[in-house]
């Protein structure tokens, strides 16, 4: 098998245009539709009940209307499970009544999150994403080159923005596990980008590549790692797809976020990160200096 060299840099405008459009759509959706934050972020009360047969939602709604508590009652997954969302926890008596409305019904889950906790979690989440991006940028700047750090950070930020955009457009609930998935996506996408950059550094330093343009070196590096990137992405995608289909409703939003993340991460590390670095003017001399100072640093 011979490696095919593909001119990724030549098509950079197509990819970047596509990404900018997707990011713009996401940002517009954030401002107009907003994000459907889950209970953990907004605070409130949620009760999930499951019956062996189809649950009669109207009965539950009537009971809640009678008590003058504002509530949203919805099926989840199938007609046997129902989620009741309210601002405050339901009185114990009312809850028991509701459970008894339908035959063979049990309480699956009851969750109450105070409003203050929710906003704290959201803040912590945002801080965690920003700090992890900054820390990894610092590592790349030290280990590779600052242009690579900046371009990988842009490629990195690109993924969660688009994923959250999709969550926003389709109104999918964004909860704490989704946030964990988003961070995993950041890690995964970074992994892909590092593999490409690692190869780029190696190629930039090869004496026989001295005459080659940075764009061709980057193209070669992406092409050489392409088979690895695609195989890994395919395998990860498959494993998470299994999780999405068979993992049960509790893991579904996590798996969905990861699925989108694998696609976005693979795309951004192949089509965005390397090209950006070249556009920012990365060249052979940047790495030579780096590797020299590395050598000096090794000396006692």
């Amino acid at each position, binding site marked *: 098998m*011979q*490696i095919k060299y593909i001119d990724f840099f030549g098509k950079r405008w197509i990819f970047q245009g596509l990404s900018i459009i997707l990011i713009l759509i996401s940002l517009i959706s954030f401002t107009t539709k907003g994000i459907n934050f889950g209970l953990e972020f907004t605070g409130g009360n949620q009760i*999930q009940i*499951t019956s062996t047969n189809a649950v009669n939602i109207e009965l539950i709604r009537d009971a809640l209307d009678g008590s003058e508590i504002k509530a949203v009652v919805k099926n989840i997954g199938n007609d046997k499970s129902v989620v009741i969302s309210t*601002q*405050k*926890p339901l009185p114990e008596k009312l809850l028991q009544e509701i459970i008894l409305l339908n035959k063979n019904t049990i*309480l*699956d*889950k*009851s*969750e*109450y999150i*105070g409003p*203050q*906790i929710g906003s704290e*979690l959201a803040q*912590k989440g945002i801080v*965690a994403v920003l700090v*992890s991006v900054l*820390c*990894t940028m610092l*590592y*790349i700047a030290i280990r590779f080159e600052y242009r690579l750090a900046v371009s990988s950070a842009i490629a990195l930020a690109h993924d969660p923005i688009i994923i959250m955009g999709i969550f926003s457009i389709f109104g999918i609930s964004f909860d*704490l*596990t989704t946030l*964990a*998935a988003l*961070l*995993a996506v*950041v*890690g*995964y996408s*970074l*992994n892909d980008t*590092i*593999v490409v950059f*690692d190869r780029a550094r*190696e190629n930039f330093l090869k004496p026989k590549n001295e005459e080659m343009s940075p764009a061709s070196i980057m193209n070669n590096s992406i092409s*050489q*790692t392409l088979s*690895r990137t695609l*195989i*890994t992405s395919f*395998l*990860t995608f*498959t*494993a*998470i797809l*299994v*999780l999405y*289909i*068979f*993992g*049960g409703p*509790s*893991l579904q939003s*996590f*798996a969905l976020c*990861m699925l989108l993340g694998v696609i976005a991460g693979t795309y951004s590390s192949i089509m965005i990160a390397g090209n950006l670095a070249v556009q920012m003017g990365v060249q052979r001399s940047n790495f030579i200096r780096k590797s020299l100072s590395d050598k000096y640093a090794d000396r006692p």
Partner: protein
Amino acid sequence: MKNRYKIWQNLLIIFTILIAIIYCVPNLFQDKPAIEFRANQKERVIQTLKDNDVKNYIVNKKDVTFTSTEDQLFALTLLQDKNISASLFLKNTTPSFLKNLNAYPMKLGLDLRGGVHLLLQADIDEVIKKDRANQEKNIIKVLRNKKVRAKKSNGKLIFSSEKARDVALYEMQTNIFAFKFSPSKKEECDKDGCKTSYIIDYLTRDEHIQNLKESITKQTILTLKKRVNELGVSEAVVQSYDGGKIAVDLPGLQDASRAKNIIGKTAALEFRIVSDEQSSMMYPYKNSKVGLQEDIILSGDSISNAQASIDDQLNHIVQVSLSSSVENRFNQVTKENVGNAMAVLMLESKKTNTGKTVKTSKVISVATIQSALGSNFSISGLNEDEAKDLSLLLRAGSMPTTVNIVEETVLGPSLGQENITKGINALILGIIIVSVFMAVYYKGFGMIANIAIVINLVCLLALLSIVGVTLTLSGIAAIVLTLGMAIDANVLIYERIKEELQINKNVQNGIFVGFNKAFATILDANVTTFIVGAVLLTLGSGPIQAFAVTLILGLITSMFTAVICTKALVNLFYGNSKEISLG
């Protein structure tokens, strides 16, 4: 011989894997729901279970194990109806030789087992406010002792002379450590001439507030633990977080309302002297009101035990034992107040429907102090029910401050069971699919990668068990992610070897260089993911932290298996090959 590990290297790998297997195996023996009872009640327990057609249980010397939580809970209600004292617990079924090696199964989180999770917020501001008021009283005492006059206004003391101020400053600095005192002077001039005032500013020291916060959190946790014990849940976890937040996890417990009633009782108790002065604060007592002095002579958290009982005259009383640390002070105060009435004040905070916290306080008991009281005394003037309630409240420990439930999750056992079954099935299916692909695509090398994945899973489970991580749903997700990364490492290595073989036909050289070059990439990729994991661990909370811990440990094991174990196996099978096939 390029691709050969030395014998000791191979032995070390085998040794590590063996240890991992030992610590992984207990996870095959999951805890069983069980009920504990007193040994002398065994016959009654057996009879009760038999009479009610409970199925699938095993009776041991002091406990009975069940196959499902539903059976366990059903049996508990049966036993409690018969007045047999019994408590729920999870019985560890790990063989004893493994236990001797300290090898235990991983604990399962609430989302995998069901149970109750409560997050409580202790009102620390209230404590700080109260403490400041107390400390200010100390200032007044000190000034009075030294007969120094000062005007107090808003964190400031204003003196008329420099000498008076300096005397006060010295006294306060040596006696009151809660504040930082800083002297200054200020000149104010009007048409009558100039007047100098001498000022001391006092500010609560940060370390004092810090100590206060810590001790309040500690006390609250202690009280919570006592209360959790009353619930009879053996594996309860009480944990504190920043800002006076305390999480209580009660795995397996189903009755949330009972848990909330006992744990969430946010009442704080204070003993105060009844005051007849007009100016004193009035508190409701039965149908009237009673005035109390401001000083708290004893707070509920200093009580070590309390029992309802009857005295010689057949009056209902509560016998109280104090912890030794407060004994002297209490003795002193009660000596000064013989003949006066002492009241027990209960402070409670409740949330209204509009979400506002309303604080209520009421006097639950008033009794005359007969003599100076020591570490054991009794409270009289109660009826039977009052005595019972008061003793229970005192025994269960009262909170040092009011505590609110800010987060509450109740998860049924069936949903937990569903989560773990589906999660693990999906995990296994994912591994199978990936393994088939690897075997087809990379042939022999693919099989080596598959062996490495299995070793990785074993090592990761062992490490998680050793560290004592609680397995949650997000933890399972992290395991999936790290297995993905481990596979990625193998793919990186194999693709690199393939590339090297295109340049140089020497197989052994190709393998050697392939491993070496791929290693640099794998290391970089893992370090960056590690950074993300570490940030999540420090900044995240709850499920995110569980995810981060699993991810970090997974990175470590995947480095070991994907790089070292794979290399060892490649050496073993292909160390002498002149020709290999890599897809």
